[in-house]
């Protein structure tokens, strides 16, 4: 059952990915932009311009460009997407796949931690808020939701850096590290296996790198937790309140279940829809955590995609969109499987 569901979903995902690739491929070529001019400069001669266009393959008709990109009936050296090659960046000349493999885990790592922590914070807070609406816990979560969710994350990032790095340092407290990347330059970077710095350093047994990595991740993760937890708490609280009024909770009470047990009953029912929200956040944050990546100089995939777009780096844009879409679809799939594990009414 599960296997069939996963196979079917993956098949659909492949069709979606093909659609997305084609769409992006043609859309960026329709845009009124001239990547060649951007590379060679406005004062370049006609010859230099044509040469550059030829080197980039932009002198070919769109159909041939697409074939070259895909890697079938290609009239240029090198493989295409179907052979697993996303091409080289026009800006850095490095293979795009290599760059993505470097940048994607950076973003994945800190949003994964942030969403996990946000969910873990949200569950007890929503439970406390929903069991006694209008009481202290409820007010606190209400203010938290308004306060944290209403202000943009770059602002919170700035504030966090100012207080926890600058002011704490001034006051002589233990402070956060400078917002300059994932590790102190003095610490030797662990060999890349998963690209997650905490996991890689543990695998390498490099404890110093682990602590330093955690130290550097602290502020970006908490900035994100602060921003997204408001929404998750609000949704959980809303679900909890609805569930608490349901017939089965009333019946659980009339059957004399202890209130802790009743709380668990309600939580389980309230959690499933909130997990979908976390999944949506995940997909969104993959490309949308740019402000935090920039403020803490992490260099994630969001930052990379912005850079590619500003440089009209077609292959990089196509590759980034494809990879982000792929990861998002996988995450949605995982969330759906988890949802079904919690709620037996969901069938594949």
């Amino acid at each position, binding site marked *: 059952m599960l296997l069939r569901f996963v196979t079917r979903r993956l098949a659909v995902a492949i069709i979606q990915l093909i659609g997305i690739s084609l769409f992006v491929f043609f859309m960026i070529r329709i845009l009124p932009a001239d990547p060649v001019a951007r590379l060679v400069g406005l004062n370049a001669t006609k010859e230099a311009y044509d040469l550059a266009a030829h080197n980039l393959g932009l002198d070919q008709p769109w159909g041939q460009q697409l074939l070259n990109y895909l890697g079938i009936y290609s009239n240029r050296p090198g493989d295409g997407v179907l052979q697993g090659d996303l091409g080289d960046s026009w800006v850095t000349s490095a293979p795009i796949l290599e760059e993505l493999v470097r940048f994607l885990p950076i973003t994945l790592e800190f949003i994964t931690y942030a969403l996990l922590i946000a969910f873990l914070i949200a569950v007890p807070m929503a439970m406390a808020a929903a069991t006694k609406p209008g009481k202290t816990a409820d007010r606190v979560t209400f203010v938290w939701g308004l306060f944290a969710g209403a202000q943009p994350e770059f602002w919170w990032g700035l504030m966090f850096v100012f207080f926890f790095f600058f002011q704490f340092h001034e006051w002589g407290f233990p402070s956060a590290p400078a917002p300059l990347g994932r590790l102190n330059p003095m610490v030797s970077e662990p060999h890349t296996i998963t690209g997650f710095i905490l996991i890689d350093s543990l695998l390498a047994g490099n404890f110093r790198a682990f602590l330093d990595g955690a130290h550097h991740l602290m502020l970006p993760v908490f900035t994100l937790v602060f921003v997204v937890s408001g929404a998750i708490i609000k949704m959980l609280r809303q679900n909890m309140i609805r569930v608490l009024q349901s017939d089965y909770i009333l*019946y*659980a009470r*009339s*059957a*004399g*279940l202890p209130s802790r047990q009743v709380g668990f*009953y309600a939580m*389980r029912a309230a959690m499933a829809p909130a997990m979908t929200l976390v999944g949506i956040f995940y997909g969104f944050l993959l490309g949308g955590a740019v402000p935090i990546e920039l403020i803490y100089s992490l260099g994630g995939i969001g930052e990379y995609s912005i850079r590619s777009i500003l440089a009209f780096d077609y292959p990089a844009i196509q590759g980034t969109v494809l990879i982000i879409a792929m990861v998002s679809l996988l995450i949605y799939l995982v969330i759906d499987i988890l949802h079904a594990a919690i709620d037996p009414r969901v069938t594949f």
Partner: protein
Amino acid sequence: MSVQEIVRPAAASNLVMEARNVTVRFPIEDAPEVTAVNNFSIQIKPGEFIGIMGEPGCGKSVAAQALLGLVRPPGYLASGEVLFQGHDLLKMDPEESRKLRGKDIGMIVQNPRYSLHPMYRVGQQIAKVYRAHNPVTKQEAWDHAIAMLRMVGINDPERRANAYAHELSSGMAQRVLIAIALSSKPKLLIADEPTSGLDVTIQAQFLDQMWENVRQTNAAVVLVTQDLGIVANYCDRVLIMHKGSVVEQADVHSFFRSPNHEYSRAILALQREETSEERNTREVKVDSTSKPLIKVDKLTKLFPIRRSESKVHAVDGASFEIRPGECLGLVGESGSGKTTAGRCLLRLVEPTSGDIFYRDLNLSKLTRDEFRKKRDKLQIVFQDPLDSLNPRWTVEQCLMEPLNLHSTMTAEQKRARMQELMQLVGIDPGQIHALPKEMSAGRQQRVSIARAIATNPDFIVLDEPTSALTPETTAEIIRLLMDLSRKLGIAYLFISHDLTTVKYICHRVVVMYLGQVVEVGTKDQVFNTPAHPYAKALLSSHLFPNVENRRVDRAVRETLQGEIPSPITERLPKGCYLYGRCPSQKDRCKAEKQELKTIGDGRQVRCWRVAEGDLPIEVAVGH
């Protein structure tokens, strides 16, 4: 678990519970508070089966919950005490009363499937409640859950314990609730309309089971219900509530014999009239030799299932006739196809095959447009009166519509006709500008009826016209329908699962099961000597409000095994549709399709054993 283990010595005190002057109020913004329950008092002895009856909103459910010390917010207990073994439940601290709930006082509610948690296995839910009140290990609790499921009559309890609520039928889910409620051997069981929404055969199975179980444990039961049949057949004593107060409290026998309060007399009206002179003058005489007004021949309706070859067999070759002025009852449980059959008759649902004749006209051969012109003679009244009236239309607009569509009257004539209609159905002329939601359900149904008779029809399909109404209004509507038939000579197809009203109003009865007609006969034939095994079981399961022949007093309580199979092509039984549930089945029934055959006394029965005289027709035990 054996019977001996379950039996407990009688409680030392001779009362299980006593409630004194309980008052529950609901605050309403910008209005005076509503007193939902006013000075409610009750004394419950061990092993007693007490019914609390009343119309919706009379406070009976609120009173039952108050006995547990619970009130749905924002309501509150204004005064009174609920003494359980000498302690006042309302003054206990929450943890103490929590310990009593579910242990010494069990509760069953309506909507069983929504009252079970959707994400936990039902066995776990029973075990959790058991563990909340008893010091046992998880394994012991689970074993107990399975023992409880077996005790409440669930087949294969080990497998069912692993099911989730949505995988169970309502009848099965209701049994799970009773397993939860009885798991700690309570001294008192409070059941709040436990069988509303269940079919009669399932209802009988369930109530029998509950009755057996509490007799074994000597628990007292407070049963909240709207159904006179349940009260008459199971309860020892009954409390009648009206507008928040108890208006009558009596032993069931004396209650049915001589109700004291005016309201009690109103709800017992139909039963009390049945034998009286008044009924004879009300009954319409039908010439049984006259030509049929409506003739249905092999009517079949199949609903396709998306992405599947198989179909839902809603109506499976139904044939019957209706004579002018006759009321034909169409009875069966949910899923028997009776509603679909009624709709096919008026082509509100297009039949898949079969013919419908109105006098000499084959309705099924008409084009939609030709048929539309006939609709003034063929009308329908639906179950839910509020749903079937346009919420923004006044009574006047509702009644004008058919006149505008089907008549050539002048405005003056229409107004006169409307006055006449309102008088016929008994609506106060002052209500002409009222909207549906401003009227009671009974009034709404009167408007629906007036609308149906506006164009002088010959024939009306009454699709469960009284099942959304209280017993009191049901009696009024049934009388109205009979009066109209007598005055205007209208024939009815009366579709209902309520055999009590069918018995009162109909001349002949058609019994349907799984889309097939299994028996057609006169009212007396079907009700007094049902021939088909399904008709027998249906009649026997139906709880007629008759205290002289209570179901619990019968030696044999005939009922069917299991539940109705779903009417999907490949799931339908090969031979007789009742095979597998029938108490009289033989090997031959398994593969042999059954035909509707006329037997000696003129009725038609779909059972070879009856047709060949192999199964004797006896006087039914039902009433």
